[in-house]
């Protein structure tokens, strides 16, 4: 009988067996990473919009309050996207001839709404309610990030379930006083742990992790 395999086959065989184990493990790890990456979550990816609307300009520059445009955030599940009328409140006076704002004026003239690209898009089976979060001391920037530094809006967080759960399990790490909810310059104090515990007690914040809290 002669050799079927070359001497090197021994090494190749062992290396490939070990290699396969590491390869599969690596692949699974990579998959897990991809699932959490911006490529999937779209986090921190600025979206193209029909109008180059800058939160940075309006919030940091002009000092508008969140609620000037997102009017229903305190009463409704939905924070509200401003109607064209809201834009025109100011822009009928300032930059009223700017070519950038032509789509706004067109919308106002023709009564055709502006179709924005949705940035924070939860799956349809998730029911998020802005009003209760805002009322319980969850600040805008906690989830939406520093919108005052976003020339084009992006989604700050992954919006994945594990991210939601993190806060629902440990609200004391994130809540702030109600009066600071809409402050974009709010920085958690050094004693957040203590403050958080106190706010959780004061605001009767529950740790809601029942499925039907969000899924109905």
């Amino acid at each position, binding site marked *: *009988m002669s050799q*079927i395999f070359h001497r090197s086959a021994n090494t190749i065989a062992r290396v490939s067996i070990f290699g396969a184990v590491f390869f599969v493990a690596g692949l699974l790890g990579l998959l*897990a990473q991809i*699932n959490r990456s911006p490529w999937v979550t779209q986090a921190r990816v600025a979206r193209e919009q029909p109008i180059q609307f800058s939160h940075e300009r309006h919030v940091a520059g002009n000092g508008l309050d969140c609620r000037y445009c997102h009017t229903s955030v305190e009463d409704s599940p939905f924070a509200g996207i401003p109607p064209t009328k809201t834009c025109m409140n100011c822009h009928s006076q300032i930059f009223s001839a700017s070519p950038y704002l032509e789509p706004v004026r067109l919308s106002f003239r023709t009564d055709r709404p502006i179709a924005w690209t949705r940035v924070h898009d939860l799956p349809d089976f998730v029911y998020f309610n802005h009003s209760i979060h805002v009322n319980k001391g969850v600040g805008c920037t906690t989830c939406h990030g520093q919108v005052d530094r976003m020339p084009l809006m992006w989604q700050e967080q992954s919006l*994945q379930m594990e991210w939601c*759960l993190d806060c629902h399990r440990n609200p004391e790490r994130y809540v702030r006083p109600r009066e600071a909810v809409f402050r974009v310059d709010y920085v958690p104090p050094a004693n957040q742990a203590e403050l958080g515990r106190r706010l959780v007690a004061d605001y009767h914040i529950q740790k809601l992790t029942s499925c039907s809290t969000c899924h109905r």
Partner: protein
Amino acid sequence: MAEHFVPVEDPPSAGLGTPPVIAPGYTFGTVTDKISAIVLTRKTPRGWYVGFGIAFLLTMVLLVSVSYLLVEGIGIWGNNQPVGWAFEITNFVWWIGIGHAGTLISAILLLLRQTWRTSINRFAEAMTLFAVACAGLFPALHTGRPWLDYWLLPYPNTMGIWPQFRSPIMWDVFAVSTYATVSFLFWFVGLLPDLATLRDRSQSKVGRFVYGLLAMGWRGSARHWHQYDTAYLLLAGLATPLVVSVHTVVSFDFAVAIVPGWHTTIFPPYFVAGAIYSGFAMVLTLAIPIRAVYGLEDFITTRHLENMAKVMLVTGLIVAYGYTVEAFIAWYSGNAYEGFMIWNRITGPYRSLYWALLFCNVLTPQVLWFRRVRKYAPGLFVVSLIVNVGMWLERFVIVVTSLHRDFLPSSWGMYRPTIWDWGTYVGTIGLFVALLLLFLRFLPMISIFEMRTILPAAKVDEDVREDLRVI
């Protein structure tokens, strides 16, 4: 440690009339040649092509059924409210049960030092693998959204949730996947020396390469044999409780539920016995034609057939006991739901199936009390077919007749299979046969090296053994 490979004398009780486990006159060489020739040199019998053709067609039926299922949903089957499970789980349990014979023959009979297992264990193990593969298809496909089946695996996910480990379905996932893995390992380890034989005997370059790759360089070293024996024995020791646990877990799918007719403590032993029963029936169903087609009567002798018939008789009686106890407890417990359940089985709309299963599983195997039947291959073949059918009916009766009339009469209903139910079922039979035929064609269906060990020449002379003992 490895004395189990040393041929054991027939037990004295076997008597003079007991045929041997291998016909006389064979040597290491002829045994090797005869078995490996099937794979390497002999012309593939025409029967193989015919069989494979039919099996392939049926596999295509499976493919079509499954594709349509994925496109349309479970609704193409006959399942409904209240019969949420029907054909698919019946088939699952049936296939898993069939698989049990292979593990039983290779593991339990090994531990019990039954040398007659040698010539049937290899293809019985292969049968196990293919049956488990067919079985596994059903739970995987029967979910409403099979593309999400991976949620049943515990892996860290972005949802932060884990499988619900109290569910018998999760137990199933672990039991069946463990069973499939261990069965494969057991089968593959057993094949290793025979792959080396094929490697060494193959005339073609491709054959030598492929078999060589699979044989991993096995060279029959005594040191290797020593580890090998240990591993094989350990695997047998692990597979034995495993095989019992698998059908126990399958029975838990039912026993843990509260449905009358399911919620029964007798299910685990009764299911395990039933599994062995149906498994042996399937081994006989396969062995009898195979040995005829390939002329293997010298290796699979009437001794084998008779022993398997005896196992069937015993497990058949256990199953019959199970039926009796089920009925008895239904009456004795005084539980109205249980009482109605049995009454409904006996007299309800599915009564003909219940009576048919009693005929198939209880009445028919009683002919095995007669030695003449046990030794008569065509007769055994018919009995084994009937038992196969009967065991399928048993699962159908358990699954469907329990569900179709459970607690609230307002929700009682009935189930009728659609062509897609049949297509999927028949398709898996096709897949099973196709895989089995491929196995027969490309791998040694009888363990060659183990056959060598049962030849008288395999014994080391007594004086040499004495010498060793001196050290």
